[in-house]
């Protein structure tokens, strides 16, 4: 009976079930990834030479007294064996307690809540900006002959190879120090978002544009494009309405990876542009060996990465229903 009902099930429901299974597997994998991240960061930081108590009380002019050292050691549970600390840590993690930051004396969750928004804003702005640049560059120039295509493709390769820190400094020098169009530092206004977003978006746009151009050029040679043209559609309409949808897939897949790249780039950009955010916080936390904060940020970044990839996976299927049929 089951087999017969299955055979006549609404294909939409079946597709949704397949999608759900897929999401479930991906989520379980994501949890494993998060556990691995927590464990790796914990041991990597604890096995680093140096006493975390002194990191807690450190600071270039901080000169901890014996009483202060002892008090800090007890407060942060550092007097227990490493294995015990690990188990206690995992237990608290399961309850959603990320602990207290050594350096900020604040709950890690609160630090993340305060700083996460700015980084989210920056990465989303960069991603959107990157896609805008990609669309502008590729849709308009693909298949336009060797000269235009060559120049555009060279531009993409160069952009893709620009390091964030270098680009950030150049943008600062030109648009903040020189032309004074944008503020060189800060995180309060939209104007202060422009330069960091561009310094993240340009290299990313280079990467995505490279793959998008290649697939767009292949698409433009397909018979259905010719059909569309014979229906009297304008060139740009053909490119945006018909060809683009086919050509987007590799770029979308790459965007999942890009979330990770953007967050690592955000560390650099937030430091250079003195912006708030978890990237700069991570940079400082690592320097101070602020274990709970480093793990907390790593977990959030990893979770963001996992989620983004699941989303991209689903988006992929939405853009190209053929993918689902292959999966089902």
């Amino acid at each position, binding site marked *: 009976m089951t087999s017969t009902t299955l055979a006549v099930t609404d294909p939409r429901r079946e597709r949704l079930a397949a999608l759900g299974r897929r999401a479930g597997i991906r989520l379980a994998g994501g949890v494993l990834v998060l556990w691995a991240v927590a464990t790796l960061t914990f041991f990597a930081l604890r096995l680093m030479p140096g006493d975390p108590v002194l990191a807690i009380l450190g600071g270039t002019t901080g000169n*901890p007294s014996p009483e202060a*050292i002892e008090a800090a*050691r007890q407060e942060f549970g550092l007097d227990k064996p490493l294995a015990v600390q690990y188990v206690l840590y995992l237990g608290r993690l399961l309850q959603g307690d990320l602990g207290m930051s050594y350096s*900020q004396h604040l709950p890690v969750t609160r630090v993340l809540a305060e*700083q996460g928004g700015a980084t989210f804003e920056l990465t989303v702005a960069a991603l959107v900006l990157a896609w805008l640049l990609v669309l502008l560059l590729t849709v308009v120039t693909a298949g336009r002959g060797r000269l235009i295509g060559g120049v555009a493709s060279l531009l993409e390769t160069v952009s893709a190879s620009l390091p964030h820190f270098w680009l950030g400094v150049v943008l*600062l020098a030109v648009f903040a120090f020189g032309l004074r169009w944008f*503020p*060189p530092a800060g995180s309060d206004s939209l104007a202060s978002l422009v330069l960091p977003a561009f310094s993240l978006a340009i290299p990313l746009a280079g990467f995505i544009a490279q793959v998008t151009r290649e697939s767009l050029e292949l698409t433009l040679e397909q018979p259905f494009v010719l059909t569309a043209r014979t229906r009297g559609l304008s060139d740009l309409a053909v490119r945006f309405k018909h060809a683009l949808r086919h050509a987007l897939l590799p770029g979308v897949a790459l965007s999942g990876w890009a979330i990770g790249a953007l967050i690592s780039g955000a560390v650099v950009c937030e430091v250079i542009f003195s912006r708030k955010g978890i990237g700069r916080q991570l940079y400082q936390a690592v320097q101070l*060996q602020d274990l709970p904060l480093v793990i907390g940020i790593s977990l959030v970044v990893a979770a963001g990465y996992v989620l983004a990839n699941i989303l991209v996976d689903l988006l992929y299927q939405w853009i190209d229903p053929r993918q689902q049929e292959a999966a089902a």
Partner: protein
Amino acid sequence: MNRPILPLIPLCAVLALVGCERAEQHTAQSTQPIHGGTLVYATDREPTCLDPHVAGDMPQVFVAQQYLDSLVSMDSHGQIGPWLASRWEVSADGLRYTFHLRRDVHFTDGTPFNAEAVKANLDHMANPKTQSSTAGGYIRQYRSTKVLDDYTAEVTLATPYAAFLEVLAQGFLGIQSPTALARSRDENCESPVGSGPFKVVRWDRQNQVELVRNPDYNWAPPTAQHQGPAYLARIVWKFIQEPSVRFASLQAGEVDVIEALPPESHEAARRNPDVDLIIAQRPGNPTNGTFNLRRAPFDDIRVREALVRSADVEGALKSVYFGEFPRSGGPLSVATPFYSGDFERSQDYDPARAAKLLDEAGWTSRDSEGYRTKGGQRLRAVVLIGARTPPSELTLWEQVQATTRQVGIELVLDQMSDAQVTSRQAAWDYDIRIGYWNTNTPDVLRIIFTSAFVQPAGVGGYHQNSSGYADTGFDALLDSALATQDAELRRQRYHLAQQQAAAQYLQLTTYPQSTRLGIYKTAHGVRLEPSLAVTYLYDAWVNK
């Protein structure tokens, strides 16, 4: 028998001269102060806690100076004056300090300032739970406070401590509302409460601290240039880590004042008609590399002097800091009370003397790379370089490395994480340790060079005397300097102490720590509080 010590005897002629030598210290003057307006201040490092009692790093005291008052004040000649305490007496044995307090002061949360508040503050600094490294460290002699009446507090110390009033003048020991101190440490870190000209309203981490004017303020110290509430309505205290970005923000007028002006920008700042500079040396032990006397090769005083003489610090300072940082040749920086200029030249570059000393010490043979050896061992010294050591400091040591090489000493610059530096320091596993100590008293020599501080401080093994120098005569000398309130006697004893520290070649001193402000044309009346050369915005105003 109590002996009133107010007014304190003016320190000495040397100090008066020193006052003039505090290079380029001037106040941006303009006609009439304007009430109201916001001053935007940008600095490099963000404090980890706004309460300066906790831990005690320089960024904390800079913010604290705006919202806290101290029990006593210190002027630019190192003289102690009244503030929240209007007068005081010290017992003949130097163990009891009786403070008579102002009666018209209250904190910005409404709590009155009284003897109970003094007790609560000193107890708070001394309490191990506060994890106070700086303030707590400076009052280790503190035993208890007795509230004699509402406005009289008697503080008892375990041993005589003549530097007590000096350290009380530092912002690190600023007086906070006892009501606020009764909250948890972390809560107090976030929103501390003082009686100062401004109050902290919001700390937006990694971005800024906002302070607003305290409208009731009417108890400014005698060192201030006006009385009553501050001129500024609001201060935005921003954190901009990158030096070039900070300076560019100043030039663009995005911020009114920047701190830690990078030395490479001094020249540009001087040429910019819109920008003023305030540069002042900080008191204490200047930036240095301290030698570890507890192991070879620096257990031999000849090798220590040889390293000092082989290092061309002047040359290195010129090339790294563009001549903007002067040389410090003695154990105390110029701005320290009881500083003596007699030892400034004891570290002058003299490679011939270095070579002679090394020959005498038996480091006569050379290996294939040209370094001196003795008994098959190369003459080698390891310098610990932590991750947060500024790149310019590292470059300075690279220059020193190049000059010591010429007389055959190999300097190894060992780069590692800061935590690793602290643990190597704790294990005495280094030859040279880079450091400095900002404080407004020559008693710093006791902390960094006497045997009491060789002992590991707690389980971490961290010790504040990183030279390992332990000499009973020197210990006794510094204790005796604390046992007298007589300024002339103190001066003599600290002179002897500086002499001995210099003659022992315990450190290669390089340059004094300094406060360097860049001030845009919109800001006026910005000054430095003299005890630690900390920015003080009470007299400041903006014209935008």
